[in-house]
């Protein structure tokens, strides 16, 4: 099982030993990663019943928290996870374009090995949340954003360097009477331009090129990429859960290497309550923000302190006890 706890979505994937996806879930995180994660585990359990999980991998910005709550075997960064998934679905892939809700990445591979990558998290104009916001402003459901863009005959020019400029540019164009379709197509082009300038810089983009992440659902962006690159852009089947799929593949690989039984607490563990708390330590002037995860009055983990005063004291949830909750759930 792979779990990707991102800022916008929390995805879960269960795959069998051959890398085939048995079940996948795409949930909105909505700022509450623990809730999204436990909801996901409950749904997964309902769907797959008494499936035997042999390994769990977590990724995404909430990977550490997810690892602690589920008892994951391996916790990996998003770049490695996305690359692992892309390699499996499109063997020989050279370039991965990934646009998520809060960040975007580009990953270059050669002979199955990542050779370079870049990540953007500082610029809102290159991310999905920017499109979300503009779709809302124009009153178009985000799911239909792409088809609007494709209908455009004459895309409006919109500044794409900065979300603030793009937005004011867009409003001005709107007020001068450009059609919604043309503005939407212009926005898609602006986002693609921003992405290529910020991330790809002048690096060579070799084929096959694949496009993944939540924004890959937007056909307008995919078309803008194809136009800007002059290359075919492949959207893989599981484009929206690639991080989680990659984490599952990494967990599978890890299991094959180590042969150790999983430390996964089980789906039932999701019915426990988890509390997360951040405390400012007063031990010194550095005032570290110490994070704490508790379940049923017991501390599962603490981190964030530089000196190790708190993080040393941790206990794990005993696997047996977690299983005995099953009857209650």
């Amino acid at each position, binding site marked *: 099982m792979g779990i990707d706890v991102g800022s916008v979505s929390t995805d879960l994937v269960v795959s069998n030993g051959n890398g085939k996806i048995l079940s996948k879930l795409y949930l909105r995180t909505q700022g509450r990663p623990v809730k999204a994660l436990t909801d996901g585990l409950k749904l997964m359990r309902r769907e797959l019943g008494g499936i035997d999980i042999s390994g769990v991998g977590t990724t995404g910005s909430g990977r550490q928290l997810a690892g602690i709550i589920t008892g994951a075997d391996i916790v990996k*960064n*998003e770049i*490695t996870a996305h690359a692992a998934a892309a390699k499996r679905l499109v063997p020989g892939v050279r370039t991965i374009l990934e646009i998520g809700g809060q960040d975007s990445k580009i990953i270059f591979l050669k002979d199955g090995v990542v050779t370079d990558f870049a990540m953007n998290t500082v610029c809102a104009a290159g991310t999905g949340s920017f499109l979300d916001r503009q779709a809302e402003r124009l009153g178009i459901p985000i799911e239909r954003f792409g088809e609007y863009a494709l209908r455009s005959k004459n895309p409006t020019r919109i500044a794409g360097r900065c979300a603030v400029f793009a937005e004011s540019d867009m409003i001005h164009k709107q007020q001068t009477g450009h059609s919604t379709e043309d503005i939407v197509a212009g926005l898609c082009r602006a986002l693609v331009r921003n992405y290529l300038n910020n991330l790809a810089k002048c690096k060579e983009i070799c084929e096959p090129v694949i496009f993944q992440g939540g924004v890959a659902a937007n056909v307008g962006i995919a078309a803008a990429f194809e136009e800007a690159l002059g290359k075919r852009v492949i959207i893989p089947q599981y484009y929206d859960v690639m991080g989680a799929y990659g984490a599952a593949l990494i967990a599978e690989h890890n299991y094959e290497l180590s042969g150790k039984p999983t430390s996964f607490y089980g789906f039932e563990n999701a019915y426990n309550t988890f509390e997360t708390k951040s405390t400012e330590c007063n031990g010194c002037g550095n005032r570290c923000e110490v994070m704490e995860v508790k379940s049923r009055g017991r501390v599962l983990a603490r981190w964030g302190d530089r000196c190790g005063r708190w993080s040393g004291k941790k206990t794990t949830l005993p696997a047996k006890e977690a299983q005995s909750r099953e009857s209650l759930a």
Partner: protein
Amino acid sequence: MKLTFPHMGNVYISVKALLDTIGTDYYMPPPWSRDNMQRGINNSPEFMCLPFKKILGDFIDGLEHGADTILFGESCGRCRMNYYGDLQTKILRDMGYRFDYIHLNLSSLTYGEIMSKLGPLFKGTGKALAVSAVTSAVRTIFAVDGLYRAACFVRCRESVKGSTDSIMLEFEEQAGRARGFAETRLALSEARVKLSRVATDARADPVKIGIVGEIFMLSDMFSNLEIEKKLGGMGAFAVNTMSVSEWMKKHFIRAMLPVKPRDKAVAAAQKYMRAKDIGGHGIYTVGNAELMCRSGFDGIIQVYPFTCMPEITAQPALGEISEKNGTPVMTLILDEMTSETGYVTRLEAFTDMLKMKKEKSSAS
């Protein structure tokens, strides 16, 4: 007179020993203080670079604790560092503080300069003692940097994760308590012995990552979010090219030599930048990156504070160096940050990538 001084990485260990030896009354801001950083941020121009803000915060903390004299060294490289002192004293005076300001010109640092500028501190100290104390201080800077380098070497090879970190934390505590050079040297030698006894994996062949960039960020672990420790924990051997001792070699020791040796890094940079100086330590960023790529490093990481002009100038050359040598280069730009997630993600992804590349090339 009560002196205060700002932090820059581990230099405080040496400065503190010097001040204790010559018997100057001083207040040292805590080495790790987000509070002080916040004070600096609140009172700095918004677009200033991070080192300025951190140093200003330390000054304010010192003056709040009764210091009446500030000791600060700045060089006159072509960057904002040029007017750090002028601007900081103006801000502090506008805030209503009254103090004396001792300004060491670091680009022409000599014994003469040190003795004349630090004259008020050495009042009552014999000249011979003063000279020997300054010499010990310089030596201590080298010894401390040596220890941190040794820690990087051991950390990525240790069998039990965290053993190096706990030795270094103990050392920092012990050095913080030490009064004078003898106790500091004792702390240093004890830490060295402990490091040499750390159980390591003899078969470990860690990826080697060179760190280049702006000197304050590279030598200040608080500001670079402990990049050496993080990379080491991920099993990568981090080699930091910028430290105060490197800087001393370039400016203080080289200035005393009758014949100046050619600077290898500056020479190596000429292929990409036809200039001896591009401000700050930018030319060393370019030169050291090239030298390390040539000597078989697996990857290079450039670190600089947001808006740092010399490093922005150096950055495009790194792309070319990376392409020509086939060595991946990653740039990390830091500013005030309280969450490390994005930073750790990049470091981990970079290290993973280098490891996979290395495995692949050794397999074939």
